[in-house]
Each structure stands twice: as C-alpha cells, then as structure tokens.
C-alpha cells in the first residue's frame, strides 16, 4: 500500500518511538492517522499495518473492533460532526443539539450523507464538560455551542463549505 510522504514520515516517527522488539505499540497510532488519510480502516490497511509492526492481520483486526474512533467499511464523512450528550452536556442542552443536528442533516447516529461529505455521531464525554454543550467536527472543538451556532455550522456544511470557511462560528484554538 502506498501512503502520502507525510504519512510515511509519521509512520517512521511512530515506529522509532518504541523499543526494537515492541513495534506493535505503534498499531493504534498508525491506524488512526492512516484512517484520517484514506477515510476508513480497510482490510488492506489492516494487512499493511500488521506487516509493518510485525503482527498478524488478525491481531490488528481485533484491535480495530475495540476502539470507537476506528471505522471499518466506508468510514465516516469528510466532516464528522460529533455531539456530546453525556451528563455535563446533557444538563446544558447537548441532547437537544444532537436532535437538532439529526433532524437538520437527516442523519442518525453514525450515519453518513449520500455524498460522503457529512456524518453525525452522538458521542460520550469529550473532555469539555465545563464548556458544555460541546461539539467536535473531526478533531476541532466547539465549546458552549448554542442552537444558532450549530445551525450555522450545519447549514455551512450542507452547502459544501469547510468548517473553517464558516466565519460566524470559531473553533477553539490552541
């Protein structure tokens, strides 16, 4: 399998982190970064990662099923909208935000739009509880999200815009 030079460089860095006989430690980091590039965890990716870390494909396969961020099949959309409804977000309107997103996008939990651009997921606590309700689009956090802000984000995505082009609502930056 061929990957972008950036991803290859990352893989090399990952593999260098762990002791010589412990390259299996790189399995999960490799899978998640590769998924970002190719869209999902395909059987070819599983075989390739297995080869590089010195595991069997079965050993990698069983890992994939365990982690909620790793997706088989077609994977999630290009922009994956994750709405937290766990306790702190629930208390400040997270469940209503999820409903709103579901109705507006016509998508249910872990469903992807027909064009593959947007997907939705009701997620567990994402570590933003004091700034609830919280939403993540891919890896970007949005804190204290109001229904109006969510509506703008979703409208933008539905019009094919990237989240960073939706000027009215800013992600949390670091």
């Amino acid at each position, binding site marked *: 399998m061929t990957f972008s030079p950036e991803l290859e460089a990352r893989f090399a860095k990952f593999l260098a982190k762990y002791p010589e006989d412990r390259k299996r430690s790189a399995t999960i980091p490799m899978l998640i970064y590769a998924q970002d590039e190719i869209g999902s965890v395909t059987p070819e990716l599983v075989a390739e990662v297995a080869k590089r870390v010195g595991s069997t494909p079965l050993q990698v396969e069983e890992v994939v099923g365990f982690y909620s961020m790793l997706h088989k099949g077609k994977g999630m959309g290009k922009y994956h909208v994750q709405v937290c409804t766990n306790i702190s977000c*629930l208390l400040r309107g997270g469940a209503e935000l999820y409903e709103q997103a579901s109705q507006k996008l016509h998508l249910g939990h872990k469903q992807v739009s027909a064009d593959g651009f947007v997907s939705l997921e009701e997620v567990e606590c994402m570590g933003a509880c*004091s700034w609830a309700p919280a939403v993540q689009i891919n890896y970007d956090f949005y804190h204290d999200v109001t229904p109006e802000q969510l509506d703008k984000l979703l409208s933008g995505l539905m019009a094919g815009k990237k989240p960073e082009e939706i000027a009215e609502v800013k992600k949390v930056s670091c």
Partner: protein
Amino acid sequence: MYNQPSPLEVPVLTRRFRLPNSHKIDTYLANEGYQAFEKAIGMSQDDIINEVKASGLRGRGGAGFPTGMKWSFVPRQSPKPKYIIVNGDESEPGTCKDRLLMEFDPHQLIEGILIAGLAVGAHQGYIYIRGEFRYLIEHMDRAIDEAYARGYLGDNILGRGIKFHLATHSGAGAYECGEESALLESFEGKRGNPRIRPPFPAVAGAYSCPTVLNNVETYCAVPSIILKGAAYFAGLGSPKNGGTRLFCLSGHVNKPGVYELPMGFNLMRLINEVGGGVRGGKKLKAVIPGGSSCPVLKADECDLNLDFDTVAAAKSMLGSGGVVVMDEDTCMVKAALRIMRFYAHESCGWCIPCREGTTWLRKVLQRFHDGQGVKSDIVLIGDLSRNMLGRTFCPLGDAAAMPTIAFVEKFRDEFEAHLDGKPCPYEKKLVAA
C-alpha cells in the same frame, strides 16, 4: 483559558497559564521552569520520593493513591528498563482539566515526568493522550521537540550524563483505556482489556517492566513540590491531602469552569462563591462530586470539604475532580440513565458481571424513564448493581454500580414517580431556558 479566573483560586499548577505564550519553553524557563529538575539532579532517589511522600500528594486520576508511596514500589534492583507512563486519557465524564495542563503549560508536565524518571531510574516516558485530543498530541509533540532542542531531553541532558526520552502516544476512543492496566494493554497495541493485579504496574507495567503510571495533573504537581518543598505543598491543602486541585465545575451553575483551589475547599462555596450559584436562581438538587463514577450527593449533603477523606466519609468519592451540579428541575432517573448508557457503551466486555450488568441496568433504567417500570424494578436495579460490585478485573463495574445505587437510594421518590405508565414529571423542564 476558556473561563474567567475566580479571585478565590490559588494558582500553583496554573500559575503560568495566563502569561503570553505560556506554552513556550522560554516562558517556562523565565518563570521557574526546569529549576525543580535541576534541584532534583542533586538529590538522591530516596530524597525525591520522600519529598513527594511528605507533600501529601495523592493521585489526581481518581483513586487518590499517595504518589510517593506508589513510586517507592518500583523495584530499584530490577535489571529491566523502567518506564514513566502518563495517563492523559481524560475520559471520566465531568472532567476537563488535564487538557488545560497540557495546553497551557506542557513543560510543567515534561518536568514532572523527568523528576519521576530520576526518582525511579527510568530513561523513557510516554504520554498516552486520548485520540480525540489530536490538537494536544501535536501541541505536546512541539513542546517535546523544544525540550530536546534545549537539552532537557536526550542522551546527555544538560551535559549531566542523564538520559531520558519522551514521546506521545495516541489512543483511539475508549473510556476503559483510562484504567491503568487497560491503558498499558492499549499502549502495547492491543485491545484495552484490563489485566489482573497483582502484579501492579510498579512491578510489571509497560512491556512487563517496572512502570510509574500517574495522571497528568499528578506529574504537574511534582515540580512545585521539589522546588518549593513538601511543607509548602502540604500546607496548601488539608490534612493528608496536600496541594491544590483543578476542580472542573459543570452543569447548572452560572460560571462553569476549571478552577484551581486548595484541597479541602468547601463544595457549597465552590458552587456559590466560585461558580456564581445555581443558574437561574433555581434551587440546588444534587451534585456529583468527582466525575460520573462517584455517588451523587443530595443538596443537604453538600456542605462538605472537597478532599479525598471527607468526601469518602460522606460515602462518595473525590474522584477526578469533576463537580457536576444539578438544579431542582433535573430528573434523577434521566441522569442515572444517561450515566448508565455511558458505562454500558464503554464496558470493554472482558468481565461478565460488568458487560451484562451495565447493559441490563441500562435497559431497566430506560424502561423506567419511559414510564414502563414496575415497583419491583427498583429492587432489581439495586440487586443488579450490588452483584457487580467487586466482581470485575477493573473498577469500571464498580464505577457503574456505585452511582446507580446512590441515585436509587437517595431519590427513590423520583423513581417511584415514574412508575406504571406515568410520564417523566421533568421532561421538557430538564434544560432551563
């Protein structure tokens, strides 16, 4: 920072957070940075461990185990390499503090790790960060690069013959991987199922080698202890509970946020004076004092001091410092259900009582909330929960059972109000305007 500070805060771990470029090594070095590490180089391993012991520092990940004692369990004579592992999985619902410590002062964490390395003779560390925190993984990577470039990491640190290497490690979404033994499995590239203990990680952790495994905030406290002394740190908190803690205040308060306060700070003062009181002038109904695994406290139990021992005496736990405030309009059945949905989703499936118990409890609570419950379900919930307690490899089963028992015992009237086809009396009122 994502929220305004409170004048009642005692900034120790967060004292640099509001400096411009607080995350850069130059800011760190200009503000006491890496001085504790230099001091620790001149100390013996026992001196470092004794200082941490005397400081009264207890683990900030949840269990509150004395950190110095944990470090002293690492066998010095072992011929195997030793590892320092950082638990940056931060996934206990209600908890959002490790994120800030890594974001605003990453070098404080690196320095704490280095000192732990000196204390136990380790030369390699890994920071396990939950996969959702991608921006933080890259942020920590940049800080680690800076530390290498300035000679604070590498084969010959500061030319003093000290070797220590450090790297980040990404998770991929699994609450269970915050549990120390499951984290180690995940770190080794496997499913995050827990290990049987003993042996504890101090003896057989990463790659079956002696390992120190602590929470991010725990390591971040170490430089202040070494630099300013155990007595200073111990004096900040309450007896046997040294230092300050980053409390994550969330839910129905006017000013939710992360606030650094002395251990033993009063919970009602946290809600009213730091948090600006309950939102909308409503009455307080209940508080979860330390993340969703901790038994709920009724409003009249909340006049208590937030340290490990006082909260334990009130039959709850200080846990991870996530203080979740619920007002009078909150449905306790709904809260219990949402929390159980979480545990049922996150149970790793390794132990049958946890896997089956959480799923069964989720179904019973859902039935209850839908108005389809019958009186005997109240007993069933208690029975199921009690049969999970202590019967699993890791404490996730307990973490699901304990809060459920408390919800039913303390709010039995609310459970009864949902019986026999009655609709939830709080529905529509849950989210205040």
